[in-house]
């Protein structure tokens, strides 16, 4: 078996393992539906769903970004970005349980709550069940449509080597990015912000998109660096690439801190009851430790580590930082979503974990399947070969 074939085999094995873990975890979670009650189930479900949805959207967003700017950093990870974006149909199916649990999740979806609150009554023009479903359908239609067309043109160019396809992808991706930012902003407002329907933040969409970008960079770099032990990825991973990916992740770490802090500073300074309640909830009952941990571990630590050129030069060190950021993103979404349900003290329910593993298992299996169904590296861009040959000649001489 040739080495590239073996890499395909590894992804196929990942698919099998992930699928098994996912199904087992989902079966256990289904039992939890009866044991822990449906409210807890849907709360854990939405949390787990959003963790993987944010990653999916992040990978999709980076696909659009790559096709727009065509940076050479995007080529080695392009197939992972595309495979992540191709998981959007799966996420559409997995969105159905959220619709089923809306009354458990969203206060504005319960007529008795709306009846008792005049403020909410004024919001029913936007926050109502039919419109919520229609909006979700529009978001998914736009995302899946864009992702499918871009992947088709990308794979097509691998075969036909027609350079006009790159131009077509660029022409679609640039307006696509605008649509992406708009739709994701609305989607995050609908699915997450409206868990606390009396609260609002205008930086919310940007905050989430930056977090998604951070997840996506950490995830795709992690997969790349693990796969880099084998061909064909071993040939394209070099210090220049790891430095680029490290620097981009570094930028997103800073952007995440910037958007998080901007939201906090404005609300803290204004100190208005309807706004500050968001941070009051998240700074008592044990949640304050999570707030502090996120500040230190999702900003200061990765910031200082990625500042060092040494970390970015050695794939092994960079891989550790990336895995760490991914773990912190899972914690970050827990901090964003769980206090919204009114849990006054910090606690992790076992359903949070089994559903995270369940949805994650299906997601990874789908991802691995998509990776296996295409060339592992885009063949259509000559820069991949040029960059690779150049670096090889450089490293053999130096």
């Amino acid at each position, binding site marked *: 078996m040739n080495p590239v074939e073996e890499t395909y085999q590894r992804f196929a094995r990942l698919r099998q393992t992930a699928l098994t873990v996912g199904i087992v975890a989902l079966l256990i979670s289904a039992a939890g539906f009866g044991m822990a009650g449906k409210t807890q189930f849907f709360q854990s479900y939405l949390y787990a769903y959003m963790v993987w949805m944010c990653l999916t959207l992040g990978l999709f967003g980076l696909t659009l970004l790559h096709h727009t700017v065509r940076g050479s950093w995007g080529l080695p990870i392009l197939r992972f970005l595309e495979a992540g974006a191709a998981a959007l149909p799966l996420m559409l199916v997995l969105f159905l349980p959220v619709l089923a649990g809306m009354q458990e999740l969203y206060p504005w979806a319960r007529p008795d709550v709306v009846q008792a609150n005049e403020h909410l009554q004024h919001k029913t023009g936007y926050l109502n069940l039919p419109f919520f479903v229609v909006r979700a359908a529009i978001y998914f239609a736009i995302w899946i449509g864009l992702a499918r067309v871009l992947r088709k043109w990308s794979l097509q160019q691998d075969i036909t080597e027609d350079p006009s396809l790159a131009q077509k992808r660029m022409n679609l991706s640039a307006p696509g990015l605008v649509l992406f930012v708009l739709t994701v902003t609305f989607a995050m407002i609908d699915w997450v912000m409206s868990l606390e329907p009396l609260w609002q933040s205008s930086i919310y969409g940007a905050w989430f998109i930056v977090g998604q970008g951070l997840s996506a960079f950490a995830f795709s770099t992690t997969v790349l660096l693990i796969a880099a032990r084998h061909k064909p990825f071993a040939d394209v991973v070099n210090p220049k690439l790891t430095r680029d990916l490290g620097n981009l992740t570094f930028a997103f770490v800073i952007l995440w801190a910037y958007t998080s*802090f901007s939201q906090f*500073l404005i609300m*803290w*300074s204004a100190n208005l009851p309807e706004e500050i309640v968001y941070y009051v909830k998240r700074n008592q009952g044990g949640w304050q430790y999570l707030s502090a941990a996120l500040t230190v571990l999702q900003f200061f630590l990765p910031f200082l580590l990625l500042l060092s*050129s040494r970390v970015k030069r050695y794939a092994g060190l960079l891989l550790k930082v990336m895995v760490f950021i991914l773990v912190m993103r899972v914690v970050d979404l827990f901090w964003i979503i769980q206090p919204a349900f009114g849990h006054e003290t910090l606690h992790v329910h076992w359903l949070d974990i089994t559903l995270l593993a369940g949805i994650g298992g299906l997601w990874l299996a789908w991802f691995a399947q998509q990776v296996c169904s295409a060339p592992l590296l885009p063949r259509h861009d000559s820069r991949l070969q040029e960059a690779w040959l150049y670096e090889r000649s*450089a490293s053999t*001489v*130096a």
Partner: protein
Amino acid sequence: MSVPLHGIIAEYESAEELLHAARRAREAGYTQMDAYSPFPVHGLSEAIGFEDHKVPWVVFISGVIGAIAGFSLQYYVSVIDYPLNVGGRPFLSWPSFIPVTFETTVLFAAFGAFIGMLALNGLPQPYHPVFNAPRFERASQDRFFLCIEASDPLFDRVKTRQFLENTGARLVSEVEE
């Protein structure tokens, strides 16, 4: 021939030739060399074996000092020297101190980068022996230079000259101290 030598310098017509020559010099075991080019050449600092990470540390430490200075200034003003009750907020309103602290961090780090780079390079330097090299003014126009310095343990007036002539140099000349 009694004038001590700074080194032997070779002139090239392109960045690729210079990179190639620098790599060959490194392979031959030379360690003390410097390259001069009209614009930054990618990979050149690695090729001449330049390993110096002092500037990043100067920048980092300047940044830390900037952060401490910015925060301390606000602390001194709002808590010690002139405490004002603003809407019942604590005097030590650290969230509102962060933007200024960030700015002073960047400011000090930028100063650290600029001044640190100049200081570590020994600039400004009105005289450098390499200015004695013929046609060296073209290092800021269209020529690329590689100078193997006399302090190199392998340096030999004749052999080093021969080595550089074999790297495709347009002109090889001695540089007087």
